């Protein structure tokens, strides 16, 4: 399975990447994507999106998906 991974704001700085591309047969959920790209534990406040729509850590991912991780939002 091929997944495009994106990081935003403070999480991007913490992870040290803006984008990553991963290929793995062992990925089923957003949680698996995080563990494939980071050794850090999951931050409960972290937000996630699949293909630019909010999702949760247990949501299934599909080949070709874009999965994004970011901190709580602070716009406005």
């Amino acid at each position, binding site marked *: 399975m091929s997944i495009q991974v994106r990081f*935003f*704001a*403070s999480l991007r700085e913490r992870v040290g990447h803006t984008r990553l591309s991963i290929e793995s047969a062992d990925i089923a959920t957003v949680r698996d994507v995080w563990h494939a790209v980071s050794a850090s534990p999951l931050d409960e406040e972290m*937000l996630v*999106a699949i293909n*630019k729509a909010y999702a949760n850590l247990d949501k299934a991912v599909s080949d070709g998906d874009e999965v994004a991780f970011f901190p*709580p*939002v602070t*716009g*406005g």
Partner: protein
Amino acid sequence: MRVEIRETAFDPWLEVSAFRRDHLAAGRIGASAVFVGTMRDFNEGDDVKSMVLEHYPGMTEQHLEAMTHDAISKHQLSDALVIHRVGTILPADDIVLVAAFSAHRKEALIACREMMETLKSTAPFWKKESLASGERWVEKNTAG
């Protein structure tokens, strides 16, 4: 409806005037409720020199469009306008404009408030402040 992300400064009052003139039927609108959010030069007890507003291109626009569409439908608005800055922002710059237009004041006022609160709590934007002592990410928005 119009939803826009801007990389340069804008005048919200000119935007509201132009939108009313170009998009709303004269005589059909009885209420215009407008919220404008402006950058302060202080936050959490510190002087703030500037900030950078980051967004998730594509997702942020989709999210704001869905939010605005829902508000128009839920409150039977005549129309709505949302503009949000990104990039480097200076104190006194306007950051966000949310305007709701309806036949009567109740719907416009409620919708404007709801859209603004939804934007603050769910739209993918992040602020990084520049202080005399360095930079810091804003970790959460102030309540209300």
